[in-house]
């Protein structure tokens, strides 16, 4: 209980303060909260809930002292309904934009602590000019409310959380309306928001209410400050935005809502826009006078036709994907058919070459996400291609608005910008519609979305190929070896003609002379990639998730995102590891069951705030009874799996340790004479090298072309299979032959040939040798 309370206090500032904890004591969130695996959240079915908040934002984009249009002045009027069973007399607000108000913000402190010294090129920040409670009966009346920024123990100067005290508590189900004046200065593009040239990306730009919610029976505000490693969490609500812009932005604005009426030009040369959005939990907008704007309808039938004929997966499957999904769900194909909507692309003129690729990726994403998870409920989806000077705003998701990002010259099969487009659109589902707490459980949206993204890419595109770039153009190929590149201070740098570095000398002091700088053009001339690189390195979109194994897995999935060991762990624990876990679960329970899990989880928690336990509950409900190896196989123990995959940190690794065919003749002379029967004792040994236990299939292929499979429950440390006097020899053995266990850390030990093939090693080595020859030849002429 103490642990739970301490963890709660770390997450909820209000609870922290109420508990009277010493703020110098580090939050106890390092101890993950173990949620009962099968316990769903206690909220009612989220679809039935009315919006919790209503925002009316009246603002204008104005210039700063240097005439850069980056200051948003105005007010927000917020009506909040208390959705819990407990009253509260305070409101907590996120003021994320204050992360850029000075060096003392928690975000920048956490970044420095982890070695990232970068700062915005100019400070931004939000000033609160007034906070008033509006009367329910007379909009003109109101009382000023006391407010203060809540310091964080690690960053006393942080001003990203604002506390407003109400004169009386808001009862359960009651409402309160607060008007807040603010001046938000956006930074030059820095980590998700800001400006670059004429491009303005207003994200996390207005004070936004935290979430008042119940956890384990305790109602408290969940309003984390802006952390380096976390994103956002808010209640669903309705938004109205009135925005005054300089006239040059007319017709070049992307927003999270739908335009209401036509823009109105003012006498001052400005233009006023009205937008509205329902059932969203954030509102972002972007303007750029250079945008090329194009609208296209999303027509599901046409996309379905293309996808059913164009993709290899569809051809191999026989039935269409819609038929497969419908069959898995027990519904008619029409019931799962995607719905039309409108796509808006806001493109940089110099990226005109990507117009069709952006649209195609968006179409494919719209098609498959709707097919798999449910209809996209909004009238539009806007895709923004960020300006060059504001690339830091790319690759982000907001309700109904996503930002992509791509460099010039990208090869078609690099799947760039396709990957980022599909991923950010996917967040409309995982984050947008199913809105988990990204402070604590980032994996629940990023992981589900990475899983979904990679599946869309695998299904809708041929495998991506590795590329290298020279003079801004991509070419396909992958170097097998790397030229030496020594750190500064390493005397060996002279050997590679990079640097001359000598220790401190009496007269000269320290000598550090850069002789030649490695650069891509010289590398291209030296390495001759067309000859010496592997021409085709294929990326299977789903298998690419395994790149997460390159990192050291320091935390279990259950560790709150803001308390992870290192920034690299966010990439692992929020994205690829959960995606691999989901793939493994899908592999263990089969595609039909898995389709049901994902669909029902989405439908149950659409417009809701699920927690990991809610997800697990759906897994258990629809995965129960799944067996590895078919009807006669071994049942999957889902609680055990979840315990290991979510709370545990053990490695999953099965491998074939031995496969031999021993002559089973007892009389060696008969063998020599050739009169012995051709019989073999076949021995196969499989080992579990990690602590993670799960049932697994094992396949043996024989020299007569047949194969046989067995299922091992994976509980013991090893498994042995012996056949005495077999008339056939085993040619290969394979653990997990269908590659269901994406979490298996080492696939190289999953297969074993009875006769190793040295040819492939030679093929690789010849190419490595060719590479070395060319590089040495090039530098043989240098100096």
């Amino acid at each position, binding site marked *: 209980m103490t642990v739970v309370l301490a963890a709660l206090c770390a997450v909820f500032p209000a609870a922290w303060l109420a508990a009277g904890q010493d703020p110098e004591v580090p939050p106890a969130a390092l101890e993950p909260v173990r949620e009962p695996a099968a316990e769903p959240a206690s909220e009612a079915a989220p679809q039935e809930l009315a919006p919790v908040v209503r925002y009316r934002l009246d603002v204008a984009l104005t210039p700063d002292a240097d005439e850069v249009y980056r200051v948003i002045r105005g007010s927000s009027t917020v009506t909040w309904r208390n959705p819990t069973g407990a009253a509260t007399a305070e409101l907590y607000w996120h003021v994320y934009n204050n992360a850029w108000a000075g060096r003392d913000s928690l975000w920048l402190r956490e970044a420095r602590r982890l070695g990232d010294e970068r700062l915005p090129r100019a400070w931004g920040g939000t000033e609160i000019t007034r906070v008033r409670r509006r009367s329910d009966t007379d909009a003109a009346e109101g009382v000023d409310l006391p407010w203060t920024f809540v310091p964080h123990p690690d960053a006393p100067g942080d001003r990203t959380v604002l506390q407003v005290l109400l004169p009386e508590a808001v009862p359960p189900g009651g409402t309160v309306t607060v008007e807040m004046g603010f001046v938000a200065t956006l930074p030059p593009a820095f980590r998700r928001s800001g400006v670059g040239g004429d491009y303005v990306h207003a994200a996390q730009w207005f004070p936004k209410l935290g979430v008042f919610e119940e956890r384990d029976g305790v109602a408290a505000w969940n309003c984390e400050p802006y952390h380096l490693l976390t994103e956002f969490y808010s209640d669903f609500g309705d938004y109205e935005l009135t925005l005054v812009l300089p006239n040059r932005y007319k017709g070049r604005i992307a927003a999270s809502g739908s335009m209401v009426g036509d823009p109105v030009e003012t006498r001052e040369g400005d233009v006023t826009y009205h937008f509205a959005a329902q059932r969203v939990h954030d509102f972002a907008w972007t303007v750029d006078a250079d945008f090329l704007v194009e609208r296209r309808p999303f027509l599901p039938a046409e996309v379905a036709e293309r996808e059913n004929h164009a993709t290899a997966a569809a051809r191999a499957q026989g039935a269409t994907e819609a038929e497969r999904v419908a069959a898995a769900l027990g519904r008619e194909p029409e019931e799962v058919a995607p719905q039309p909507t409108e796509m808006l692309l806001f493109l940089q003129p110099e990226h005109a070459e990507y117009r069709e690729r952006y649209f195609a990726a968006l179409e494919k994403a719209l098609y498959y996400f709707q097919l798999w998870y449910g209809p996209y409920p909004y009238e539009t989806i806007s895709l923004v291609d960020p300006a060059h000077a504001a690339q830091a705003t790319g690759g982000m998701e907001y309700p109904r608005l996503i930002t992509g990002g791509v460099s*010039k010259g990208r090869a078609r099969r690099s799947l760039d910008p396709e990957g980022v487009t599909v991923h950010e659109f996917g967040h409309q589902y995982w984050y947008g519609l199913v809105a988990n707490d990204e402070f604590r459980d980032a994996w629940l949206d990023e992981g589900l979305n990475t899983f979904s993204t990679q599946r869309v890419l695998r299904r809708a595109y041929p495998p991506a190929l590795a590329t290298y770039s020279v*003079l801004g153009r991509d070419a396909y190929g992958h170097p097998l*070896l790397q030229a030496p590149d020594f750190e500064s201070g390493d005397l060996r740098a002279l*050997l*590679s003609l990079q640097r001359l570095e000598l220790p401190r000398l009496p007269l000269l002091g320290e000598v550090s002379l850069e002789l030649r700088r490695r*650069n891509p053009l010289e590398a291209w001339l030296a390495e001759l990639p067309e000859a010496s690189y592997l021409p085709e*390195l294929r990326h299977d979109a789903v298998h690419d998730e395994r790149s997460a194994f390159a990192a050291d897995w320091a935390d279990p999935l259950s560790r709150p995102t803001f308390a992870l060991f290192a920034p690299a762990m966010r990439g692992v624990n929020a994205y690829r590891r959960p995606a691999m876990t989901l793939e493994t679960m899908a592999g263990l329970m089969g595609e039909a069951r898995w389709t049901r899990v994902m669909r029902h989880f989405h439908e149950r928690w659409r417009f809701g705030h699920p927690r990991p336990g809610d997800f697990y509950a759906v897994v258990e409900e629809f995965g129960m009874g799944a067996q590895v190896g078919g009807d006669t196989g071994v049942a999957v123990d889902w609680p055990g799996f979840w315990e290991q995959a979510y709370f545990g940190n053990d490695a999953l690794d099965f491998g074939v340790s031995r496969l031999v065919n021993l002559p089973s003749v007892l009389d060696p002379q008969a063998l020599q004479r050739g009169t012995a029967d051709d019989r073999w004792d076949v021995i196969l040994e499989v080992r579990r090298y990690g602590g993670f236990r799960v049932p697994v299939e094992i396949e043996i292929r024989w020299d007569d072309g047949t194969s046989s499979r067995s299922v091992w429950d994976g509980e013991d440390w090893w498994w042995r299979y012996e056949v005495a006097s077999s008339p056939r020899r085993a040619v290969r053995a394979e653990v997990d032959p269908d590659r269901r266990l994406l979490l298996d850390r080492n696939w190289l030990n999953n297969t*074993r040939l009875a006769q190793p093939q040295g040819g492939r090693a030679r093929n690789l080595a010849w190419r490595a040798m060719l590479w070395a020859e060319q590089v040495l*030849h090039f530098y043989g002429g240098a*100096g």
Partner: protein
Amino acid sequence: MAVRASERRRGAVSPLDYPGAPRSPADEALAGPLPLRGGVLYLWQGLRAAMRQPGVLALLLLYSFLSALLVALPYYSSALEHLSPIAGFAGEGPLNLSFSAPRWLLDEWARLDGSLQRTTAHGMAPLLLLASLSGLLITGGWMSVALRGREGAGMAAFLQGAGRYFFRFLRTWILGLALYAGVTWLVWRAPGEWVLARLVPGGELELAASETRALWIENGRLILYVALLFLVELVLDLGRASLVIGDRHSALFALVRGLGFLLYEPVRVAGVVLVGWILEALWIAALVALSHTLAAPVWPLVLVLPLGRIILRGARYGGLAALYAAARSSRRARRHAPAPFVDGTAWAEGA
């Protein structure tokens, strides 16, 4: 020294009393000045000289092969251990790895043998230094061979030239390092940064008004840098040619002479060097295209590709040396030619 006029025209035989190149106007007058021709012809002369040395080519090919083998062997051992016992996945096709590989396979191999890339990269470092230094031997050898003509050339001449000029070239090599460092400083440090700050706000390419502009600036900088590196290399090669032709010793003056020669004969030098590079590029492109078209294994490329490059490098060095010798001879002949009399005739007393 008897030289047939037809042979001299063909450039097949050098009139120079190698290695004692003409040292006086009297020698020059005796042998007669070399005809100064287009740069490409000197490249052709160097090419023929290189092609006539199968022993030298075999030696250099062997050297190229063996030094690359040092890098490839640990790579092969690791591949043999980790990749040869495994089978490909269903649907991935055979794991031949000649032209194509799944990414997961290379990733997991890299994880299992985490030190492989570091080992091979660090193994490359001393080989790079060795390649650069042995390049000096090779330069001296090829220049000697090119200047010897048909009769005097051979493996012995190559090795003799390599040894004779190595330490003189080494001094130019050391000066060359300083020049490379100077070029690097010029392009990437204060001067380069100063120019960059004039082109984009704060000198940060991310802040350029457009990606196109940033790309132009970035590429321009790269091209300028690499072009300057090649220029330094060319000056060094010409300086070395001057050491050979004049049998001189001063590295510093050699560089000055190399630079002067480049400024004096830019077109002919370009004829040797640029055409040489173009031929090399064509050689590489043709072989690679052929290999891809035929889906041929890689090992023939390992043998044939360097052979062409070795020959063409020899042709460039030899061509530069021959050009330098001819230009020097021609210049001297002009300098010491008797002034014509008013009737247009001219004569001179033999020495």
